[in-house]
């Protein structure tokens, strides 16, 4: 039971990284992106391929995963910025699907639908961080989430965050205030993509095997749920959202209920909770982060 | 003269902000009544309350003898009972509002906007007739009739909003700063037109306007609002002479 709880924490940690990235794109930048799964996959495969084919250590693959995802973030960020609202959502969704489709079909590099197995476990100062012994892994992950959180939080509370907020609130006014909106939107994409890539790396060395089937569109949706459920434009809330969504999805297994009820009930329950939570707190559990200077933002408005 | 609109002791709040406090007023059928007041005094809030867009926290509003809004807290026959008509039903009673900030249907053409104004009118000929009348009155709208409203200039949109409200052939028209963003000539025109529809079509007019002088000149009766309360009520000519009003609202 406790072990299982640790597992939930680990999954929550991995998704929290993605949610932080989604939050900067959607919560701050107001862009509805549905492509975290794509970056997640790129990060995972970068680590998997480099580690199994070229014998790289996990730590060496991590920056590559981050940079590679960031690069793709830039690649799709730049052109798609012309798109608004759901048009952007569709373009990004398309990108995510393309990534998965390519991974599934590029057999010589990714081993196609079989995926890549036997990914070596990461080493830290000579200790192997065995994902079966969850403490060390969790520790490593918590540190990473914490660093990402602090970094994002500070960026958000600086000019960058304000500029992004301005872009979200009113692009035309932001432009007229000397803000290069393209630049900030691309920054948001790059940052959001790179943490998702890092999340992918961790995922790869936790599950020790990657298959294209893991990185479906549903992952992007779940990450979006985490951000909205926690509260958009609030990094703490994204982490909380990640934890809660994972807790809800694994609650039946955690409590042992999963083997008692029909398997579908677990999903139905999840759906119900989603609906009820949204109706109960449409602004998310924590809501948007209060304005740094002044009062808490009004409850109901804002966002993509 | 018959009382068409009666506002009885109403209050409206936005969270902690008390936008209207115990406001009472009445508009007689066939009159032009104006309401003046400083920025943020609650004029727009009052108009929104009349059309059911803001819930009352106290009081009630009656139109043509029928209660259209009552606050939830009001006690009726020993029971706490709120009641209100939704905005669309109020509109169907014959109240048209020219909202603050125009609120035109930006993705519709001028013509379609006018059609929407006449949504409750079923007679196609009447609609066509009224449309032509509007194009006569605002020739620039006629010239732009197939253009999307979003691309109109600010003033053109304002004309659009006024014309749209008139399309329904209302019994009571509520105008929230109709002169906003209009050129001086056009404003003068509009006040003439208001007078005309009032006299010819027997439309009752309730007017909120920053340009207090014009408003008072055009109206028969006036109310002055400060901080969500009515502080003065008199016939307009008297208000025009009122020292207090002259100092505060006529810029003298």
């Amino acid at each position, binding site marked *: 039971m406790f072990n299982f709880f640790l597992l939930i924490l680990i999954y929550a940690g991995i998704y929290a990284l993605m949610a932080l990235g989604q939050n900067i794109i959607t919560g701050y930048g107001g862009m*509805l992106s549905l492509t975290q799964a794509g970056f997640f996959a790129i990060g995972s495969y970068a680590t998997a391929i480099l580690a199994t084919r070229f014998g790289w250590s996990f730590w060496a693959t991590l920056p590559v995963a981050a940079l590679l995802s960031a690069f793709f973030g830039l690649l799709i960020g730049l*052109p*798609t910025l*012309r*798109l608004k609202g*759901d*048009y952007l*959502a*569709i*373009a990004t969704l*398309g*990108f995510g*699907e*393309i990534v998965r*489709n*390519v991974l599934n*079909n590029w057999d010589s590099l990714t081993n196609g639908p079989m995926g890549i197995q036997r990914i070596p476990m990461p080493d830290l100062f000579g200790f192997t961080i065995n994902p079966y012994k969850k403490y060390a892994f969790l520790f490593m992950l918590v540190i990473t989430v914490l660093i990402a959180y602090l970094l994002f939080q500070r960026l958000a509370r600086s000019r960058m965050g304000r500029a992004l907020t301005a872009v979200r609130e009113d692009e*035309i006014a932001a432009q007229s205030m000397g803000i290069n909106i393209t630049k900030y939107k691309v920054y948001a994409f790059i940052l959001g993509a790179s943490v998702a890539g890092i999340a992918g790396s961790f995922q790869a060395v936790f599950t020790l095997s990657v298959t294209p089937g893991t990185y479906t569109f549903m992952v992007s*949706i779940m990450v*979006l749920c985490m951000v*909205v*459920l926690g509260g*958009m434009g609030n990094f703490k809330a994204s982490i909380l959202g990640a934890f809660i969504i994972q807790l809800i999805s694994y609650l039946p297994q955690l409590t042992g209920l999963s083997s008692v009820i029909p398997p*579908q*009930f677990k*999903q*139905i329950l*999840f*759906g119900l909770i*989603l*609906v009820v939570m*949204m*109706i109960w707190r*449409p*602004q998310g559990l924590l809501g948007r982060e209060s304005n740094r200077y002044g009062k808490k933002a009004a409850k*109901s*408005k804002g*966002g993509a | 003269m018959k009382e068409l609109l009666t506002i009885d002791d109403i209050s409206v709040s936005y969270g902690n902000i008390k936008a209207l406090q115990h406001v009472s007023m009445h508009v007689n059928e066939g009159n032009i009544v104006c309401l003046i007041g400083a920025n943020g005094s609650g004029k727009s809030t009052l108009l929104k309350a009349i*059309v059911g867009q803001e819930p009352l926290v106290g009081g009630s509003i009656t139109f043509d003898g029928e209660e259209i809004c009552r606050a939830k807290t009001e006690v009726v026959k020993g029971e706490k009972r709120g009641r209100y008509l*939704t*905005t*669309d039903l109020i*509109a*169907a009673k014959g109240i*048209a*509002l020219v*909202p603050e900030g125009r*609120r*035109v*249907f*930006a*993705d*519709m053409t001028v013509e*379609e906007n006018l059609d*929407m104004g006449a*949504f409750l009118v079923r007679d196609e000929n009447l609609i066509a007739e009224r449309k032509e009348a509007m194009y006569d009155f605002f020739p620039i709208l006629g010239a732009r009739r197939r253009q*999307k409203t*979003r691309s*109109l200039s600010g003033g053109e949109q304002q004309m659009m909003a006024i014309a*749209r409200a008139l399309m329904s052939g209302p019994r009571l028209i509520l105008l929230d700063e109709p002169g906003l963003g209009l050129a001086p000539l056009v404003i003068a025109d509009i006040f003439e037109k208001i007078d005309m529809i009032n006299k010819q079509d027997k439309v009752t007019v309730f007017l909120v306007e920053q340009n207090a002088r014009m408003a008072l000149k055009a109206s028969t009766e006036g109310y002055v609002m400060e901080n969500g309360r009515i502080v003065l009520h008199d016939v307009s000519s008297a208000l025009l002479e009122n020292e207090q009003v002259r100092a505060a609202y006529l810029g003298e």
Partner: protein
Amino acid sequence: MGIAEFFQHLMNGLTLGGIYALIALGYTMVYGILKFINFAHGDVLMVGAYVGLFLFDLLRGSSPLGLWTIIAFFIAMLISMAFSAVLGVFIERVAYKPLRRATRLAPLLSAIGVSFILSNSAAWMFGTHSRKFNYPFDNTPVHLGDVVITPHQILILVVSLVMMIILKLFVDRTRMGKAMRATSLDQGTAMLMGINVNRVISMTFAIGSALAAVGGILIALDFKVYATMGTMTGLKAFVAAVVGGIGNISGAMFGGILLGLLETFGVAIFGIPTGLKDTIAFGVLIIILLVKPEGLFGKVEKEKV
């Protein structure tokens, strides 16, 4: 590629596109008005297909193909449309209406929740296996030279075209249609015009869901009925609807057909591995959006300041 093969691909692409278009039309209805992705649309479609299937089997009994099977099919379809319409309105009332004033993403999440509930309830009640929906008519393929078409393919194309035309007339010409457009632009102001926004929205959901039922049943003839049938096809149809231009009825139709043709020809013409079908299709769609950011039939309207 020979001429025959080309025309065969064309026909295949058109009908696949017809299927997307059929679903996309329903999506666009709801989407155009409430501006949120109704994720549960595909699942309403699935429910419609199940209802249609059960009713049709019940009505048909063991009678052979003939007039009665066709009548039974239509009765089943009508009842299923009504059922789905009620379901759609119910979902709107319960899961979306309370969120009308919330951020745009809140109803999206709620819709995802509804989708989970519907598809898993169906899996629980009706099982996880696919069920065959028998053709109510003789579906023997027709040979035109080397090109083969089935009556069902033609039916799909005809139905989606007819539906598009009816919908377009409805939205452009009728009072209800006008009210829908006004509601989609500004609900508050629409009410000022005397429009009953709640009724308009319910009506939209009713029509959209009834359309979903038609789509579901027609698709089921070809693709079978199963609990997750709405998910993937629904998603693609939605993509098609958006690429056509948000809320634009002809756009949804053409977006659907375009997607079908792209999926077919993208891999048929250049000898690209068929596994990369989605990559080609999505890639081209992204490029189309980049060239025409408001969708194929959307109007580019710069915001006036």
